[in-house]
């Protein structure tokens, strides 16, 4: 492979945001028909490098060589016209358009008459999705579907656009294992059969080992190493990423003494779930695990008054909610909820401190919130979860994905709730940050709060839960204690 010149090469790339150096002298290349993975901690500069590659940023130092020629892209459109397509994690979907329209955005097939060929469009979209295991109605607006579908839609759009260089920035962060499996097959297929060149960013190293020919590790905006996938191991990658061995020990769980039920769900039925019964004790972490369409994310929303339920009761520490309660009521009664979509819950253009204080603005500032008080409340929690860079004034949108997630969780720490409902708490986080976030949850548990971790990632659920509840097609199908010898495969088989 290395005897042919690379199709694409970046040399000595340096990118600064004011005083912050996001990338320094980074080199990167890509050969035809190769999958080159890019890994690194949150904030290492992966997305920034890819934004340069796909024309989003055009102010940087260094050389960009495509097909042996020095170029400077003008825009993402320019990149696309040269065959470079990028899958941004949640960026480019149009929620109001149908799934099929999203997949064919900007290049709908036409009939002989020159009108949009809806039939072909819907058929192809349906087929492609089915190949990946999604049997869904592609005529419905995309916003009606969970994040996983939106992600797949984005992936399909870029793949079908015919780009010869595909950049995938964390394409699987909202998918569950079976779908990841099919996506990996698709990626491998694109590479070997269609000779596409792929850049693959992920925090899931197992995944990386399976798709990549080569792996480049970035740390603090610098090249650390580029290794052949066959000659490396997951452990080696982890130490390259972190620059040290991982200390993957979560704080030990302290035994809770008196049992007190904090959250009790009785016979809850709604659009996406049926007859759900679930108890959560003080000082307990329950993992709610399920795949796409299991209804577990909607159940979490229902607990927070954001998803309608038709019958059944939700009780928090002895108080039963009426059927029509709002998020506000839920917060007042001691519930906190972190959505799986950062985009829905965070205010990207607003300063970190404003994102953090919003749920508790009344407590912090009373009628007149003051800047000083708000920052004084926000800074300690940002430090506690280690948001990097820890600048309360910066808009949350300038943080890397993983750090945004920390902010989304951190905002509840100022006034800790009784019951914490967290959907996909570690989505898009690197190995180290994952640990930090999970530690936060374990600490909550040790302080006597109840934590419900809602996730489609078996690793996350297995890492922290005392008890695991498995949902499938809106129903609870099994419930088991997490004694430590439970394996990922065993859990996945339960569905």
């Amino acid at each position, binding site marked *: 492979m290395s005897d042919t010149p690379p199709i694409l090469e970046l040399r000595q790339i340096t990118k600064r945001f004011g*005083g912050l150096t996001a990338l320094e002298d980074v080199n990167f290349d890509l050969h035809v028909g190769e999958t080159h993975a890019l890994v690194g901690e949150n904030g290492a500069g992966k997305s920034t490098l890819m934004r340069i590659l796909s024309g989003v940023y055009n102010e940087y130092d260094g050389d960009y060589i495509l097909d042996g020629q020095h170029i400077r892209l003008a825009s993402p459109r320019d990149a696309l016209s040269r065959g470079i397509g990028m899958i941004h994690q949640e*960026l480019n979907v149009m929620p109001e358009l149908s799934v099929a329209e999203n997949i064919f955005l900007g290049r709908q097939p036409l009939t002989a008459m020159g009108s949009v060929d809806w039939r072909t469009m819907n058929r192809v979209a349906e087929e492609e999705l089915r190949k990946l295991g999604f049997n869904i109605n592609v005529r419905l607006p995309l916003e009606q579907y969970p994040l996983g579908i939106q992600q797949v839609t984005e992936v399909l759009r870029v793949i079908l656009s015919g780009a010869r260089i595909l950049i995938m920035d964390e394409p699987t962060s909202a998918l569950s294992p079976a779908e990841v499996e099919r996506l990996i097959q698709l990626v491998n297929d694109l590479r070997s059969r269609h000779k596409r060149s792929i850049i693959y960013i992920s925090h899931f190293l197992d995944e990386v080992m399976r798709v990549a020919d080569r792996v480049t590790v970035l740390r603090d905006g610098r090249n650390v190493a580029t290794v052949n996938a066959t000659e490396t191991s997951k452990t080696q990658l982890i130490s390259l990423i972190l620059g040290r061995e991982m200390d993957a020990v979560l704080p030990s769980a302290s035994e809770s003494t008196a049992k007190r039920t904090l959250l009790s769900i009785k016979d809850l039925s709604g659009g996406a779930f049926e007859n759900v019964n679930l108890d959560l004790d003080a000082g307990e972490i329950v993992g709610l695990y399920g795949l796409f369409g299991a209804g577990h994310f909607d159940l979490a929303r229902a607990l927070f008054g954001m998803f309608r339920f038709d019958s059944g009761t939700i009780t928090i520490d002895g108080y039963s909610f009426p059927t029509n309660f709002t998020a506000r009521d839920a917060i007042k009664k001691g519930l906190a909820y972190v959505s799986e979509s950062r*985009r829905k819950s965070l205010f990207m253009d607003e300063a970190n401190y404003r994102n953090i204080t919003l749920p508790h603005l009344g407590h912090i500032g009373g009628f007149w*919130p003051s800047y000083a008080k708000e920052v004084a409340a926000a800074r300690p929690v940002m430090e506690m979860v280690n948001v990097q860079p820890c600048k309360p004034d910066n808009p949350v*949108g300038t943080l890397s994905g993983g750090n945004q997630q920390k902010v989304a969780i951190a905002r509840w720490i100022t006034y800790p709730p009784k019951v914490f409902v967290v959907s996909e708490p570690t989505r*898009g986080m690197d190995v180290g940050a994952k640990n930090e976030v999970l530690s936060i949850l374990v600490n909550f548990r040790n302080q006597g709060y109840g934590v419900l971790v809602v996730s489609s990632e078996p690793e996350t659920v297995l890492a922290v839960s005392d008890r695991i509840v498995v949902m499938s097609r809106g129903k609870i199908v099994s419930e088991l204690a997490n004694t430590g010898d439970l394996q990922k495969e065993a859990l996945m088989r339960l569905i």
Partner: protein
Amino acid sequence: MTQTDAVTSHLHEEKRSTVLKRSLRTLAPLWTLLALMLFFSLASESFLRPINLNNILVQISTLAILGAGMTFVLLTGQIDLSIASMVTLVGIINAHMFVNMGIPEPWPSLAAVGVATLLGLLSGLATTRFRIPSFMSTLAMSLIASGLATWISQGRTFFKISEVAAFLGSGRIGGPDGLRVLTVVAALCLLVSFLVLRYTRFGRYIYMTGANPSGARLAGVNTNLIFTAALAISGFCGGLAGLVNMGRLGSAQPQVIDSFMIDTIGAVVLGGTSLNGGRGGIIQTVIGLLIYGTLRNGLDNIQQLDPFMKEFITGVVLMGALIINLLFSGRSVRDRT
């Protein structure tokens, strides 16, 4: 507020050139205003005279009261198309109670402003309870209000107005050369709105709800209340503007002056408040009002200009501002991966 704040907090984070670009866009309305003033002061001798400048203030006072309310509404990402009808209805209610029913002030004025606030509240409820987009609910409300005005007045104009309205609309503080009351009322409206939006918790909720409604809801903000409150505030401002306007004209007419709505939205947007919600504020609105006032008045002061071209030119400027507004609203920091 958020725009300028965001800019300052970005200062050390972004390249100098980007900072320049950013401040260029936030300051664009200010440059526009200065350029217009320069242009008109060169093109017409009368423009810079104190009398004329005072004229501009008087001309934009009614708009300013309406604009204060509209700023609340636009910041939440909604729109209020009923304000022109509110202005008319308030005049008619006040005059009808005062003249036909013989009820002494302050009741007619209080009732009239109360009705306007209530109708704004109802638009808000229709929008939040029944999920009717605000441009539809307020459009319907505008018909309701103007319909009520026609019905109550039976199509007749009132030429007698109450002393309260006369004081608000044409009174002066401190002798015949003193400050116009309506300018003071407008300034107070803007000042109070400014303080509320910038310094109170409610103000923060307005911004956050406009920037990301689902995010606000997830953080426990009662967004329905915020939307409704914004429309009610706009209704209240419509009411106040109605009293002022009838005092200024010395009569209450049942015909709706449509330009109030277009001018208000135009001025607020010209200042740089986003139609998508979450960005902008009273400072922007003040600049927008001054631009609007300068443009209108300046065109009047140029003798050579075909008077029939004025509206055309104002429209073109408004269109330009809208394009800039929409162009930049997509250029924000987005979710990163």
